[in-house]
């Protein structure tokens, strides 16, 4: 199949400019999920808060760590992790769950990609309340490095986009990949320093962290939240992956975009 770089790019640009549509879709998705509940999307916030508080206090005690350092660390890392992993799992279904629309209308498919990413960004900001409370309690310092949360988040979003495009396309054709992804992500949560810190790991397994994309992509948001600057290596690593990831996504997208309506 001939790649159509032009139409793939046009799709992405058009889709991005259609922010009013995907913005609306993202909001509506959240609204629908919590319709007729009292506290709406804050249900995730609440259950996340309880989870982090219980686990944080428990593990700080077990590992003999200071709760005021461990809790904010766990909380910030877990919040970002939830955003990344939910985006990826929902991203697998991005195209085939929109079968009704794709078979009725011609529209830029990237709009669907944006709406998945946007929806999870909204949820992230709801959940951020938990971190603000934990941070207040634990006295997390706000420094100049805190500002790095903005480029960190932007870079994370940029990565979410290419990953969702790629996963969405692959899963559209091979439905097993969604299951594979959720297993991989479940495992990765324990292999990536979310619940434990890099210091606890020791030298032997350090490459588990150094070459772990998920660690770096979480850390460029987590560290600024904790008032620290992420390491230069994290920026470089994420930057390089962003570049090659986008190239891969665009290559696959330009080749198979027009097959999506046949595959679903």
């Amino acid at each position, binding site marked *: 199949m001939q790649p159509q770089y032009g139409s793939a790019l046009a799709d992405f640009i058009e889709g991005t400019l259609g922010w009013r549509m995907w913005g609306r879709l993202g909001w509506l998705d959240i609204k*629908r999920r919590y319709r007729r509940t009292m506290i709406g999307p804050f249900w995730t916030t609440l259950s996340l808060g309880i989870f982090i508080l219980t686990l944080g206090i428990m593990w700080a005690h077990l590992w003999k760590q200071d709760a005021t350092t461990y809790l904010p660390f766990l909380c910030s890392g877990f919040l970002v992790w939830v955003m990344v992993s939910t985006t990826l799992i929902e991203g697998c279904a991005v195209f085939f769950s929109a079968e009704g*629309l794709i078979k009725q209308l*011609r529209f830029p498919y990237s709009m669907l990609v944006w709406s998945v990413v946007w929806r999870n960004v909204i949820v992230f900001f709801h959940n951020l309340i938990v971190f603000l409370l934990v941070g207040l309690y634990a006295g997390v310092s706000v420094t100049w490095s805190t500002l790095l949360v903005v480029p960190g988040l932007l870079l994370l979003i940029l990565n979410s986009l290419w990953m969702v495009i790629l996963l969405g396309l692959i899963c559209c054709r*091979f439905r097993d990949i969604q299951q594979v992804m959720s297993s991989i992500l479940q495992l990765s949560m324990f292999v990536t320093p979310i619940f434990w810190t890099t210091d606890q790991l020791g030298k032997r397994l350090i490459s588990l962290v150094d070459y772990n994309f998920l660690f770096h992509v979480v850390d460029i948001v987590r560290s600024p939240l904790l008032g620290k600057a992420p390491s230069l290596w994290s920026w470089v690593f994420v930057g390089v992956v962003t570049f090659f990831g986008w190239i891969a996504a665009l290559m696959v997208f330009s080749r198979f975009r027009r097959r999506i309506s*046949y595959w679903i």
Partner: protein
Amino acid sequence: MASLVVDNVTVDFPIYGSQKTFRHALFAKTTGGFIRREGDNNERVSVRALENISFNLSHGDRLGMIGHNGAGKSTLLRVCSGVYEPTQGTVKIDGKVSPLFSTSPGLDGDDSGYENIQTCGMFLGMTPEEIVQKTPEIEEFSELGDYLSLPVRTYSTGMLVRLGFGIATCIDPEILLLDEGLGAGDARFAERANKRVDALVERASILVLASHSDALIKAMCNKAILLQGGRIIAQGSVDDVIKEYHQLNQSVA
């Protein structure tokens, strides 16, 4: 000026049954050297839905597509809308396409009538401002009154049809693609619905209508094609094509 050029279009649908999964594709690669697959056809099953379709429409053309179930009418409409990019051949669309295959793309039962007017309207290509402008018209046509503030899952089927129809027919199409399924409801509604469809068609520069009904095609179109098994077997004036269609029916019967 709007135009629609379909040139030598062929559409094959891949059929993914057992070989759909990742496992098979993976095994096909890894075990390829040991277990031979019997040629391309055994690996890929596909159905030819359209074959060598060509036509050329410009401003003022109203094309009726007639044919039996499974003749390829809906697929051809979807090719014209850009939903399916043809396997071979090209489709050149010049102008805004409004496909009306279902009256309410993106309709969600839990959203209120007003929210659905917004969402469906945007999917049909209107800007939020245009939708606000058209909302009174939809309110009036659908006669739903205060129900529009309630979730649409509380509507009766008839109410839902009225809402969907009201939204779908308020667009200003250039190239209008219609599937005959549009329109239902009680007798009074049917009459009003027909009027609205007529007005909608009037506004369109090009119309492509798929239907089983020769009466509908006679009333609305000035050109026609007869499809069978994914091929055009007759093309030309409405009367001639309908005559062919009747002959086809007789030969089958």
